[in-house]
């Protein structure tokens, strides 16, 4: 059984009890407990079921590397699956549920898989679900989807807030153990700006647990000393509960701060630190490895360092009677800690023939039995450990003795946490003596100057002993300070440390060495993914030589823990099976983040109303208060139609069109791009940009123009007005305003830098209002101030003047086909002019219209919309707009592209009008024309025209121009729509309406 010890646990506050629930059952812990330690105190040893075989699983570790104790945490809008119990601090009201079982943790139907385990080896999916083909979709996939995954999927929208923070520092230190703190103090003394991140709520790492003496202080006292010294340095910032999650190019790093997970509050829950550092020191420590013997996944088998952590930090023990199994000296600390806590240690099983060093002598002196050269053949127990069978390490697992116990503390050596070193390309060396990969300081990740920007310190650098740990941290601090242009003037006196002499570890990858299949097939490498020694060996036999392939075939090292415990053991077993050296097999790639971070933190503040910026015109408020429904166009929202009481949307559109064609309409066109192009070479520049000639345009006149990309495909269109000899105003589409301005600048800055031209995007400086319809002139005349007669302001002209006292530029351009004025005024005057026009137009039947009415009216006129009639593969010729492509100009963007044989070929899709045979049946959007079983084109725009009383459409049809009069089939579902190919212009082909 596991239970709370009296008088131990430096992190818990026994005067401060905390209540929470696990699987609905109330549990009590103390402030400072993790969910793992509190559940351990409550003797809850089984915490979940494994992924594939549904085996009972309990705690293995005490930190972020924990593979088993994953919880469905929280409820409703704060529900989150796969949260590690070891990194979750308890608080009043916390709710946690274990995962991957049905109907209950204790009794799980899925555990049947465990009995059938020999039928589910590595690659089972790939081999089994091949035939029959139909079964994948209808049988296998539904079953697998149902049973796959660990936690549940949240069903409600996340109610918490998240945010980013951009931080800049000279030196970023990741890890707040002794190495990180020593490095922070030392580099801080140089005056450099230092930021240290520690993922857990407290600093000190192993110094809070292990019996270490530094400068006459014990571990915790030394940490307190370091913290006190650092507090004196205003240039050093320490952040707890903040994980250094990733290291990227150019000294960019991500910090993941958990603000309220331990104490729910209204403030942001997580903060993603986006850090720029000149140098990064990774002081991320090391992770202990498991030992590979049969039944090593049974609850009660734990990492030896974790057993010690729980006792020292939280005052809980995972067992009353613990067998320690090891291949190194460190695990003896656990035995001594257990002994000191008054707990039984029936034996230390040391796989090394000659056992350990000074600490083994201490243990022996205390009367603890030590069996060297031995190992564990298998663990006895179902839902928790009841005994271990001890055998000779060199043998095949013939048990020499069974030792009753309720906990097994295992240590297979240590692996430096090299993840952050490796994220951005830092290389590793294989350390033969300690059987581990450690950072190669001569091959660090390099920055924009080709210099290494990451330094490893402490055990993360491969320095396992206390002396080396501290001295590497100090060295890294000096180097980093030096490289950021600070020097450390006073050398601090070297630390004097007291640590016992240790004997080298022995690499033990399988226990016992000659374990037969029966044992190997119950020996777990990867607890989270249920990968066994036998699976990796099978993969090797089946030809998977690359560690990356083996990972994907067996799932070793996948999922939420990314193989933090299993990687080295797995690749060592693979190396053994391939008869290769471990460094030749290599590691899989370490990718950020170090542990999973919340999706909310990645989204930051961008959710709800702040999800995406919405651009609004100066008249937007009026639209909203007058029944407008909006549609997004690029980042803008535009009034789609103004719905009056009792109207459907279609009613409103019909009313708006008839009012405009019959009297006068009012339209907010402010979103159209307005780019000023000015300079002696402006005309020349525009001739290069547009397909048609612009330099011949006379001041005071407007011309419609097309822009193509280099391939000759249409990219934008709009009206260009020549303001004076040197100055043009280019209108773009709503979506094109930023893009086209950037396009212009790119050509000016990279290709035509010799042209004397400047551009400015004035889209937002002006409100632009369209007044269109037979009564348009009367409305403007009612406002007064400028002569807008046909003579003074002819079609395709513009004039600067005042309207009702407001300085305005009035264009005679028309997208509706009616007599139409577009009036540009400074945006601050926009709403005023809108209201004045409404007032003045009241007597003339004025009605505001939205974008859909605009679209229908331009459809009636056969005008194209870039993005509707064009899709990036359409040339002006395809659209029947060859008249807008200059034959005289020597060059323009797209000229040569357009001349390629394919783009000139007959039979390309060409734009035509369509008239349905039925007057009531509108063609569906994007319907395909089919001829002889082949698609020959598609509908680009389709509307019901209230003006004409029947549906109209445009379509791109193979050789469309030569098909006039043909009736085409448009099958949609079971129905075949029929439409005749007709001229594009349905309304006022002569243009009489707009030129009055």
């Amino acid at each position, binding site marked *: 059984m596991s239970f709370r010890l009296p008088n131990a646990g430096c992190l818990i506050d026994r005067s401060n009890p905390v209540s929470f629930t696990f699987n609905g059952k109330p549990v009590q812990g103390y402030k400072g407990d993790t969910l793992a330690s509190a559940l351990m105190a409550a003797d809850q040893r089984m915490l979940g079921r494994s992924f594939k075989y549904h085996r009972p699983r309990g705690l293995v570790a005490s930190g972020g590397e924990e593979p088993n104790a994953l919880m469905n945490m929280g409820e409703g809008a704060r529900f989150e699956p796969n949260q590690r119990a070891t990194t979750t601090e308890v608080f009043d009201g916390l709710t946690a549920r274990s995962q991957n079982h049905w109907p209950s943790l204790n009794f799980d139907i899925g555990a049947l898989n465990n009995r059938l385990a020999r039928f589910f080896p590595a690659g089972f999916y790939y081999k089994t679900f091949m035939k029959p083909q139909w079964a994948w979709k209808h049988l296998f996939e539904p079953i697998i989807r149902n049973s796959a995954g660990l936690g549940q999927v949240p069903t409600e929208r996340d109610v918490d*807030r998240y*945010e*980013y*923070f*951009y*931080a*800049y520092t000279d030196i970023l230190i990741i890890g707040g153990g002794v190495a990180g703190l020593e490095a922070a103090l030392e580099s801080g003394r140089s005056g450099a*700006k230092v*930021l240290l991140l520690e993922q857990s709520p407290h600093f000190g790492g192993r110094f809070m647990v292990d019996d270490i003496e530094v400068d006459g202080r014990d571990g915790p006292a030394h940490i307190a000393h370091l913290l006190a010294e650092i507090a004196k340095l*205003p240039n050093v*910032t320490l952040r707890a509960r903040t994980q250094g999650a990733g290291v990227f190019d150019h000294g960019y790093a991500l910090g993941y*701060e958990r603000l309220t997970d331990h104490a729910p*509050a*209204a*403030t*942001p829950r997580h*903060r993603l630190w*986006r850090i*720029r550092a000149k140098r990064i020191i990774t002081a991320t420590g090391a992770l202990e490895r498991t030992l590979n013997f049969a039944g090593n996944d049974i609850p009660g088998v734990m990492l030896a360092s974790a057993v010690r952590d729980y006792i020292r930090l939280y005052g809980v023990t995972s067992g009353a009677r613990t067998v320690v199994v090891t291949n190194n000296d460190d695990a003896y600390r656990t035995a001594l800690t257990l002994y000191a806590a008054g707990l039984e240690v029936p034996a230390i099983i040391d796989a090394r023939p000659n056992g350990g060093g000074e600490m083994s002598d201490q243990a022996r002196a205390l009367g603890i039995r030590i069996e060297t050269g031995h190992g564990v053949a298998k663990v006895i127990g179902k839902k928790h450990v009841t005994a271990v069978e001890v055998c000779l390490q060199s043998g095949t697992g013939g048990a020499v003795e069974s030792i009753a116990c309720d906990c097994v503390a295992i240590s297979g050596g240590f692996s430096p946490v090299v993840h952050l070193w490796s994220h951005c390309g830092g290389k590793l060396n294989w350390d033969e003596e300690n059987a581990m990969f450690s950072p190669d300081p001569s091959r660090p990740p390099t920055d924009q100057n080709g210099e290494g920007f990451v330094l490893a310190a402490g055990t993360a650098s491969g320095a396992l002993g206390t002396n080396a740990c501290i001295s590497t941290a100090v060295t890294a601090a000096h180097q980093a300070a030096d490289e950021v242009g600070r020097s450390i003037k006073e050398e601090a006196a070297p630390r004097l440390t007291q640590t016992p002499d240790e004997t080298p570890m022995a690499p033990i990858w399988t226990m016992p060495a000659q374990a037969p299949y029966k044992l190997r097939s119950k020996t777990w490498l990867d607890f989270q993914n249920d990968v066994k020694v036998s699976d990796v060996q099978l993969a090797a036999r089946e030809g998977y030589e690359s560690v990356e392939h083996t990972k994907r075939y067996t799932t070793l090292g996948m999922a939420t823990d990314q193989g933090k415990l299993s990687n080295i053991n797995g690749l060592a077993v693979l190396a053994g099976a391939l008869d290769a050296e471990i460094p030749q097999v290599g590691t899989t790639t370490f990718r950020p983040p170090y542990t999973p971070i919340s999706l909310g933190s990645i989204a*930051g*503040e*961008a959710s709800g*109303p*702040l999800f*995406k*910026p*919405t*651009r*609004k*015109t*100066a008249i937007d408020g009026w639209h909203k208060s007058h029944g407008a429904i909006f549609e997004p166009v690029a980042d*803008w929202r535009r009034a789609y139609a103004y719905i009056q009481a009792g109207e459907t949307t279609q009613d409103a559109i019909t009313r708006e069109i008839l009012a405009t064609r019959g009297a006068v309409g009012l339209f907010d066109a402010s979103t159209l791009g307005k780019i*000023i192009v*000015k*300079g*002696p070479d402006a005309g020349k520049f525009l001739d290069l940009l547009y397909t048609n000639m612009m330099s011949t345009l006379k001041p005071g006149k407007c011309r419609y123009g097309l822009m193509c990309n280099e391939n000759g495909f249409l990219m934008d269109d709009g009206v260009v007005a020549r303001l004076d000899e*040197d100055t043009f105003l280019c209108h773009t589409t709503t979506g094109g305003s930023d893009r086209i301005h950037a396009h212009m600048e790119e050509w000016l800055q990279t290709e035509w830098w010799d042209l*004397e031209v*400047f*551009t*400015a995007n*004035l*889209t*937002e*400086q*002006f409100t632009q209002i369209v007044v269109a319809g037979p009564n348009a002139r009367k409305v403007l005349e009612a406002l007064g101030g400028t002569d807008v007669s046909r003579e003074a302001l002819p079609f395709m002209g513009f004039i600067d003047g005042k309207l009702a006292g407001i300085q305005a530029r009035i264009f005679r351009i028309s997208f509706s086909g009616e007599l139409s004025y577009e009036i540009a005024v*400074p*945006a*601050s005057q926009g709403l005023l002019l809108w209201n004045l026009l409404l007032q003045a137009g009241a007597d003339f039947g004025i009605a505001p219209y939205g974008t859909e009415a605009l679209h229908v009216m331009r459809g009636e006129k056969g005008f194209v919309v870039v993005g509707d009639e064009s899709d990036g593969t359409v040339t002006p010729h395809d659209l029947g707009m060859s008249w807008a492509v200059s034959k005289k100009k020597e060059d323009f963007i797209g000229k040569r592209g357009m001349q390629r044989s394919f783009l000139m070929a007959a039979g390309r899709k060409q734009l035509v009008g369509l008239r349905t045979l039925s007057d009531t049946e509108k063609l569906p959007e994007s319907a395909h024309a089919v001829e002889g079983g082949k698609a020959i084109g598609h509908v680009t725009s389709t509307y019901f025209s209230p003006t004409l009383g029947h549906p109209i459409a445009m379509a791109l049809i193979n050789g469309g121009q030569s098909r006039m009069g043909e009736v085409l089939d448009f099958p949609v579902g079971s129905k075949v729509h029929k439409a005749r190919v007709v001229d594009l212009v349905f309304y006022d082909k002569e243009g009489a309406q707009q030129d009055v």
Partner: protein
Amino acid sequence: MSDLMSFSEIDGSGAVLVAAQRRVAMMTLKADLSNKATRTALKKVLGSAVPAPRKIVKGVAWMAPDELLVMVPEGTTPEDLVNQLHTEIKAPILAVDVSDARAVMTLKGNAAREVLAKGAPVDLSAEAFAQGDFRRTRLGQVAVAFWMEADDEITLVCFASLKQFMFDWLVNAAQKGSLPAYLNR
């Protein structure tokens, strides 16, 4: 800080005061800023030398190697300034009123730097960003430019169409209890 009357919207609920200013007169000038005669003429009209990259001097801000943003001083108008520039500068230029294209926000309070650092990839520490510094960058997803008006006050410019979004963004970022306390310790 500007007169309260110059604000169209104010929110004081957070760690800093967030205020949207009414119309601020400003103009964009595009010119060859390396041209000596142009620089001399600019100094004459604007009353200060062309600012160095990423600097603002007396309301004249460096936007790009060929672009300045000029806050139009009281007592003159963008139109007058545009005319003066055209008169004084012989080389081709583009000078236009952009007052209505922009929205201007004020952040007032010691935490202003930290509020901005939640969205702008800029070192906003006092050592790296002080009065006279100017950045054309982004805040969250919005293109902005900003500078220190005083030690505890930041002025921010964005496109007018995003005025409300930007204001809401700032109010959200300024919520009490949400400051990292990294820049102001």
